[in-house]
């Protein structure tokens, strides 16, 4: 390992670096340890959430109906929190530290504070998980009052959010310091610009979460009241906007994977950066789509939020939807793959896990997740979609098939370059994005169809067997629920492959990466 040290111009202290032999990136060793710990914790959360996904999927499969009702609701709460919050945010913390140090040749500012943030997030996530498993927080991810959980549940949630806010602050401080210390020339790379977008959205998102959860905690301690409508407005400012953090981080990773796998160069930096900027300004309005059929909000509010400025964020996504495939096409054609209209696509490195993960993620988000979200955001259609499984289908195509799959693909580069270990079980790696991607396509489409037929989300028994008044959903619903169960089995298999590769790689002998392609590194 070639360790070098460079003085920090303000403190005079020295940060320890190593230089990556493959990418020539300079890696701050203190940041590297934080990246590793955050990433490993993220994968632990993904494993727990994935186990719950398996059990939940087998319960909603009508012929299997595995769990009892209380355990179904309990594990569904745990699934939502571990996947939507803990897995994603721990991974994003690792991603932010990676982006602001390695990609900028810079050091991390406030390393001790970063460990405090990690500790807060770890303690918060453990408290939430323990409360859920003890049956003291059967309230779902959204925890709408007056449905009440143990006060410690909200304490855990808030501690985690405070840790996440610290991560964003450390990212921003390090970004400024990198500029001040002239660690890079000119403008920051596009991927870091995308991460900056994510961090900015994260700050107002987490602030909104605090406004929702702190009064709820006080109410549980007997101080004051919480209005259910006001809670939903502020909670979704957190709950949905948090997915926009994921969106920005995912797109930053899409651009990075396009570069790492085929050497793609953004076709037009100006346009891509403008598209990220549109997200900062407009995408938070997406959160209002949860509230379209709420009592309490007036017509003007619902008029404004069914479309309008939201479409400017959609414009941002349409720009990325052009720019990324175009960048890949240009790069492939430059390599000489010019045959026919799609020769560049057919000859792309489909066997490289980063590339197949990128393409599945692009496809699932671009053709299923994004469009379904825009459609159910229309007021009249929301009457048909609100709280049905159609919503669940939408966000499994965005945050799972899209974000999670992109993060998985990126991991295969991080393991050789940052963990400095070769990948374990390479044949598994090759097929992992395919298995996971195909499973999630089946899950999200069948969930959406079941929801269109009327199947509610967060529901143990859509046959209503024990209900006083019988209700029957269209018979096709059962087929769709079964398909979701099968899709979940396939996707969980893909998830297990990912975890096996990651955990296995941790026990591989340590060595410097030899090539950029993780299959050869």
């Amino acid at each position, binding site marked *: 390992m070639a360790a070098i040290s460079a003085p920090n111009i303000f403190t005079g202290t020295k940060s320890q670096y190593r230089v990556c032999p493959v990418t020539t990136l300079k890696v701050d060793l203190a940041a590297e340890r934080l990246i590793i710990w955050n990433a490993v914790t993220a994968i632990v959360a993904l494993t727990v959430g994935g186990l719950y996904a398996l059990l939940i999927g087998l319960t909603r499969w009508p012929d299997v109906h595995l769990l009892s009702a209380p355990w179904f609701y309990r594990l569904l709460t745990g699934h939502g929190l571990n996947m939507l919050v803990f897995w994603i945010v721990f991974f994003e913390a690792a991603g932010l530290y990676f982006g602001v140090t390695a990609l900028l040749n810079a050091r991390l500012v406030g390393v001790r504070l970063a460990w405090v943030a990690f500790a807060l997030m770890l303690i918060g996530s453990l408290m939430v998980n323990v409360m859920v498993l003890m049956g003291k927080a059967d309230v779902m991810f959204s925890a709408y009052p007056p449905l009440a959980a143990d006060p410690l549940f909200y304490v855990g949630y808030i501690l985690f959010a405070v840790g996440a806010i610290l991560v964003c602050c450390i990212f921003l401080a390090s970004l400024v310091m990198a500029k001040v210390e002239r660690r890079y020339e000119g403008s920051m790379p596009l991927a870091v610009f995308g991460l900056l977008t994510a961090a900015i959205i994260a700050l107002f998102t987490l602030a909104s979460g605090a406004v929702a959860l702190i009064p709820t905690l006080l109410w549980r301690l007997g101080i004051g009241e919480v209005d259910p409508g006001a809670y939903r407005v502020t909670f979704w400012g957190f709950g949905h906007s948090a997915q926009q953090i994921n969106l920005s981080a995912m797109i930053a990773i899409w651009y990075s994977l396009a570069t790492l796998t085929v050497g793609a160069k953004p076709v037009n930096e100006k346009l891509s950066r403008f598209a990220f900027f549109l997200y900062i300004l407009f995408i938070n309005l997406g959160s209002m789509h949860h509230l379209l059929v709420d009592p309490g909000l007036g017509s003007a509010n619902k008029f404004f939020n069914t*479309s309008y400025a939201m479409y400017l964020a959609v414009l941002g996504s349409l720009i990325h939807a052009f720019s990324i495939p175009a960048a890949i096409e240009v790069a492939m054609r430059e390599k000489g793959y010019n045959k026919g209209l799609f020769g560049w696509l057919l000859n792309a490195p489909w066997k490289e896990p980063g590339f197949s993960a990128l393409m599945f993620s692009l496809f699932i988000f671009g053709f299923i997740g994004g469009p379904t979200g825009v459609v159910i955001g229309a007021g009249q259609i929301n009457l048909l979609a609100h709280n049905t499984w159609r919503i669940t289908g939408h966000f499994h195509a965005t945050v799972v098939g899209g974000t999670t799959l992109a993060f998985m693909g990126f991991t295969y580069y991080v393991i050789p370059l940052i963990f400095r270990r070769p990948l374990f079980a390479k044949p598994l790696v090759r097929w992992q994005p395919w298995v996971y991607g195909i499973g999630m396509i089946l899950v999200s489409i069948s969930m959406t169809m079941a929801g269109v037929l009327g199947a509610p989300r967060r529901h143990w028994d859509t046959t209503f067997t024990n209900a006083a008044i019988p*209700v029957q959903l269209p018979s096709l619903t059962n087929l769709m629920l079964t398909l979701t169960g099968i899709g979940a089995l396939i996707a969980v298999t893909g998830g297990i492959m990912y975890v096996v590769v990651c955990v296995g790689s941790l026990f591989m002998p340590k060595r410097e990466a030899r090539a950029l392609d993780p299959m050869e590194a």
Partner: protein
Amino acid sequence: MAIFSPERVWWKPLGREERLWVTVSAVWCFFMFFMLIGWYFLGAQNLPTKTMRITPAQFQTLTDAFVQANKVGEEAGIPIVHVPAGGDAYLIAKQWQWTPILELEVGKTYTLHLSSLDVQHGFSVQPINLNLQIFPGYDFIVTVTPNRTGEYGLICNEFCSIGHHLMTGKIIVK
């Protein structure tokens, strides 16, 4: 290279294909922008927006009086209530029941009051799959004109604690 700093001057004009794509996308986005406003005036089923504050106790009292005045039967212990044409109907959401069962007439217009006595619930009419969020403390007022006869199932689609899946009800249109 998205992971390296771009060249010094990166604010270059868009290429021909990019201009075309951005123009088409922007035109479409603005079309949708106006279309979705327009749909509130062109479309037949709009979001209900009339809401009043009410305490659970008050709502219970109003519903009790409504049931007492109009009760025509009972099913599984839940009263069946024939709503006077053009009149107000009250429907309680509580853990884990919709009560009473409402009997409406096709083609008549009713004012439906929805509220919860405990936690949040989801008013979901099946099989037409029409869904509204219900809060305690809010009287959600919806104007309804049934256009097809039949029995419509009511389910709850907002998680309302562990008996959530037991919560059903019914609306009869004659």
